[in-house]
């Protein structure tokens, strides 16, 4: 029952806010693509809902529905010694995702992932898991909406700010198998956490002419799943700088560069801390988004610049993301 109530809160929030929303200029957010930098949820390796610190949205942050592919490469230590062998891990995620406006200031983002992961052991054996992952639904509310430039000089601003906050829920629609969590290899080799997790998020961005700067932070409260495993809470942050280019043949090209990081608290099993499960990782991120009419596509890569995951027993190698969206 509690879970039902919790998962319905987005609907409630929507109704409440909706009732009070004044009518504003509907083209406000279409002026410059940097007003919003969307919520960026990351998952450690396989089992989060969205994948790889690549965000719930696009740099340009239009409303859309689309598909996204995320590849993450890890290696993790199979054993407890300095010379224990590494296991190569490949995390693949295909997502249906969308950002749908509800009112001028409120939007709902949903992501449904399908994961297909595999890992290769030194003895030549391998293990694969695949399946629907955890469905995430978030609501975002815009606190600061950039002003639309008027015709006169005193109605125009060169710097435009955007701030939005949001929250949501990640539901245990993906399977969690405790057996994959034993041994000393990566505890996140899963397609789901098996838990109801709750997310708070904030995004700020500022645009100046064709330049944009985005900053984001979010926090995921994770809960114990039904087999008494509790993934640690997670803090995610990111900073991106982007620039818009317009050409005749392509509507927009937006290259961007930045940093994105994740901090994980210790996991718990049967209420007891699991040693060597906390950590943090920071990536350098490079990418670009291109739009042609109603279609938008993007690519980005993330390379670790600093990491300390699972006491060094897990190493992130790189992440790659591709998406194709239809703008609403």
């Amino acid at each position, binding site marked *: 029952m*509690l*879970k039902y*109530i*919790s998962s319905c*809160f987005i609907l*409630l*929030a929507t109704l*409440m*806010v909706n009732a*009070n*929303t*004044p009518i504003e200029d509907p083209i406000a957010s279409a002026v410059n693509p940097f007003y919003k930098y969307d919520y960026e949820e990351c998952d450690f390796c396989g089992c989060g809902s969205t994948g790889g610190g690549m965000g719930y949205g696009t740099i340009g942050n239009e409303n859309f529905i689309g598909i996204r592919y995320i590849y993450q490469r890890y290696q993790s230590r199979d*054993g*407890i*010694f*300095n*010379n*224990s062998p590494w296991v190569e891990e490949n995390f693949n995620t295909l997502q249906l995702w969308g950002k749908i406006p509800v009112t001028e200031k409120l939007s709902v983002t949903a992501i449904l992932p399908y994961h297909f992961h595999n890992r290769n052991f030194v003895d030549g054996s391998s293990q694969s898991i695949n399946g629907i992952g955890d469905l995430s639904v978030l609501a975002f*509310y815009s*606190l600061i909406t950039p002003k639309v430039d008027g015709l006169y000089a005193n109605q125009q601003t060169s710097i435009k700010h955007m701030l939005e*906050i949001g*929250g949501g*829920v990640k539901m245990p629609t993906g399977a969690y198998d*405790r*057996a994959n969590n*034993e*041994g*000393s290899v990566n505890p996140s080799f899963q397609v789901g956490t098996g838990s*109801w997790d*709750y997310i*708070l998020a904030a995004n700020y961005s500022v645009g100046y002419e064709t330049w944009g700067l985005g900053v984001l932070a979010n926090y995921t*409260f994770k*809960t*114990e799943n*039904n087999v008494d495993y509790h993934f640690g809470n997670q803090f995610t942050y990111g900073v991106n700088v982007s620039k818009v280019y317009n050409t005749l043949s392509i509507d927009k090209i937006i290259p961007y560069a930045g940093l994105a990081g994740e901090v994980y608290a210790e996991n718990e*099993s*049967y*209420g*007891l*801390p*699991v*040693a*060597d499960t906390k950590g943090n990782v920071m990536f350098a991120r490079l990418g670009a988004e291109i739009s042609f009419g109603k279609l938008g596509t993007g690519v980005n890569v993330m390379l670790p610049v600093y990491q300390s995951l699972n006491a060094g027993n897990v190493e992130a190698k790189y992440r790659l993301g591709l998406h194709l969206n239809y703008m609403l």
Partner: protein
Amino acid sequence: MKTIIKLQLLILTLALSVISCSSDDDATQELSGENNLTIEFDNSVNGDDLLLGTSSYTNSNGETLTINRFNYIVSNFVLIDAEGNEYVYPKDDSYFVVSEEEAMNEVVLENIPAGDYVAMRFGVGVDQEKYLQGAEGQGDFLQIAEETEMMWSWQAGYKFLNFEGIFTSATVTEATNFQIHMGSHGSSLDNYKEVTVELPTTALVSESLSPIVHFAVDANEILDGNTKILLSEKAVVMIDEVKSPQIAVNATGMFRVDHVHNGENIEH
């Protein structure tokens, strides 16, 4: 103003949703019944996995060893719970050989009463009480010890530790065999020692929970422990009234619990 009210509503809604889920499940179940507790002895040398015959390891004595045999006897297990209560595993069933070459690395203690165990005590070797029960009193263990090179003869007694290989050093440049056979030598010299280790995570035993306690056992401690034992001085140590007791103490320093897996019927 309207924006602020809306914001308050939104934050309130979010806060409620977070609170409503944190009060969920999490009921700590009462531990009842009994189950197995598995102990894995993962052998290593100074932080590296022990690989017989292939890798060489240099210790702080400046001696480089290639290890060909690493066998030892562990016995008389006692589990200690959070309240300090001790569960003594039945003595007749409490003798085990750990042998790297035979891949005997696992000790399964059966029918352990439910509990939250925070520490463990056990012996390295065979105590005099057991030995003085005579050959018949040893049960199957006598045969296991013979098959794993853990006996000299019945009169001479058990080898508690059988550590063999080849080594070189500054003074011994030719690869030379070494043999460390430590034991009690009948009833004249008692080298049986006990070790108490704390578990980094409580091991939970119940009808549905059967934990694995994963030891990292450091063979480097035998020569490079409390007392430095130089193979260059003596490469074959069997019956030695000075070095054998020192090695027995060093051997107690080999044992550290790396981690504990809690779970039901888990594969490690």
